[in-house]
């Protein structure tokens, strides 16, 4: 379970991608992939970041790690490794950190990618892949590094003699374990898991989810778990953030979000998930149309064209992201008065 200490705080994070056109390649528009995200992650918790394709969840995860250069905003990270003498941690703004500091910060912040096929170099042995972070950061060499790689492979359920093999000799689930071992090599505090199980078959998904949970307990990890599958996110997360068109529309403790949703998009998203029980009957809220383009988002509340509760004000005024109490954050004008349908539990 999570302690109450905050490990990472994101303030007003924005990431725009320019759209260029014409022979002069002038910027004609901006894709607002992440358009003002505020959230914090507590130590040792799993924060689920969920949304449909194009909502900006992956971009948000990568901007937090500064794998993408944020357009605006702060990403405050409380690093233990960088702590000065006497201090418990050192607070660093990842978004503004100079290169050298950023490299040191990478020891604390790692990522697991979605596709276990394209994220491992086919020409490197597993030993070299998992040992590479140790090499880059000059942490250990020779026998010592080999020993550490063995230990890491053991932690993720692979065998030490797998070190000599190449990625193509492994199944999808095993490859994902290799990716996990690489992320853990530097003993990080925060791991961003970007759709870590969506490329895997269901029986293998469960193996990897259980592994991630065990590793969290063993190493005291904090996860930002980015995924589109609401059932998986509900299972693994302590708190969940729902994104729509580059913004967080709702963020709350998992139990509170599913039993007491406050945003109409959360309600619709939850009702659309097919539940594996033929007797399960809920009113499925079918949203009209598609997600609008992030180049030209709607006026007012971004969700208003598809919202069944919309009123005039939603078309003109953008709702603010606010705490309804008990750390239940929502971006909706009418969150206090709407009576939304929760997930019915069996």
């Amino acid at each position: 379970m999570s302690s109450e200490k905050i490990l990472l705080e994101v303030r007003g994070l924005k990431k725009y991608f320019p759209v260029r056109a014409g022979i002069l390649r002038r910027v004609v528009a901006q894709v607002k992939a992440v358009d003002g995200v505020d959230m914090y992650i507590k130590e040792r918790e799993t924060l689920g970041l969920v949304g449909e394709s194009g909502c900006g969840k992956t971009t948000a995860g990568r901007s937090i790690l500064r794998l993408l250069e944020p357009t605006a905003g702060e990403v405050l990270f409380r690093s233990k490794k960088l702590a000065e003498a006497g201090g418990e941690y050192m607070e660093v703004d990842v978004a503004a950190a100079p290169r050298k500091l950023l490299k040191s910060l990478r020891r604390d912040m790692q990522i697991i990618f979605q596709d276990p096929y394209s994220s491992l170099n086919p020409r490197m042995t597993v030993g070299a892949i998992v040992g590479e972070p140790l090499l880059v950061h000059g942490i250990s060499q020779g026998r010592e590094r080999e020993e550490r790689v063995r230990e890491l492979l053991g932690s993720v359920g692979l065998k030490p003699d797998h070190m000599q093999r190449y990625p193509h000799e492994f199944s999808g689930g095993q490859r994902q374990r290799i990716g996990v071992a690489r992320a853990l090599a530097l003993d990080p505090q925060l791991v961003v898991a970007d759709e870590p199980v969506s490329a895997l078959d269901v029986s293998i998904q469960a193996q990897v989810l259980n592994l991630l949970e065990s590793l969290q307990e063993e190493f005291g990890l904090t996860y930002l778990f980015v995924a589109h599958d609401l059932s998986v996110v509900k299972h693994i997360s302590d708190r969940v953030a729902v994104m729509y068109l580059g913004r967080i529309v709702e963020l709350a403790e998992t139990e509170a979000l599913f039993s007491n949703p406050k945003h109409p998009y959360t309600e619709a998203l939850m009702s659309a998930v097919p539940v594996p029980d033929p007797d399960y009957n809920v009113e499925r809220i079918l949203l009209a149309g598609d997600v609008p383009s992030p180049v030209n988002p709607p006026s007012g509340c971004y969700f208003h064209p598809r919202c069944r509760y919309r009123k005039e004000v939603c078309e003109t005024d953008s709702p603010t992201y606010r705490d309804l109490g008990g750390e239940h954050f929502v971006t909706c004008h009418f969150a206090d008065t709407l009576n939304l349908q929760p997930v019915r539990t069996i």
Partner: protein
Amino acid sequence: MPLIEVRGLKTYFYTEDGVVRAVNGVNFVIEPEKTLGVVGESGCGKSVTAFSIMGLVQSPPGKIDAGEIIYHRNGNATDLTQLNTKGREYRAIRGNEIAMIFQEPMTSLNPVYTIGNQIMEAIILHQRVGKKKAHKKATEMLRAVGIPIPEQRVDEYPHQLSGGMRQRAMIAMALSCNPALLIADEPTTALDVTIEAQVLELMNTLRKEFNAAIQFITHDLGVIAHMADDVVVMYLGKIVESASVKDIFHNTKHPYTQGLMNSIPSLATTKERLIPIKGVVPDPFDVPPGCGFEPRCPHAMDVCKEQIPMLKEVSSGHQVSCFLY
């Protein structure tokens, strides 16, 4: 009278590295106007079964080695495996009486023809009507699948449509000749959940409207629970369990089906810990000699290593292939 009866179907692929028994002795029926769900993980043979019915197994290397696919229409029974897949009779059935929609709507639509042109192709081919009439029918079909402003959309190209709209266009194309059977191979896997809900709802409505049967192939047990009347569960080219949708979920018999149920998280229940199936699906070139699931089965016995279990009835309409029963 069932619509399709598949008996002892074996579809093998003869590759340089050996024989892949993708479908290895499969029996099932599809009833008219009902939805048969086919569940299984990648490589279990669920798509190859569908391709065998459609006569779309690429040969070589693929070949239907044994079995029958009996198609009942107007009191006649036709064994589809005996027809020439490139012959006139199969062509009159494929895309007309039996139609198919695929997982990836972008790769299964031709990018250089308009949506309307592609729907018209089937209509002109099978119904022998003129271009003008076919164009009108194509517009009607797009309206039936809920595409807004169909008069305009019919002349647009696939890239101008969103993923959900493309899948609707695929459904319009498949239903344009009023088929008796619609085979849907993971039709919503590439779609977002809110769009998936729209497409599933549409398929349920249209099935009733067009009186078509559906063979619905998916790996998603949630979708199966929502769509199917009857379900077959496949593993390594064989059916391990076959029952009504209620029995599959509430009276699960086969250890593999039970394993699938225990390994998925659900929105409606809270599981402290998922129970995964141990190990991985065996290499298709090196399948176990006995029961295919034996190496991963928590209930494996000595007999499972040596003998192959047959599908047998454990209660009315509920068949399981496992030595536990």
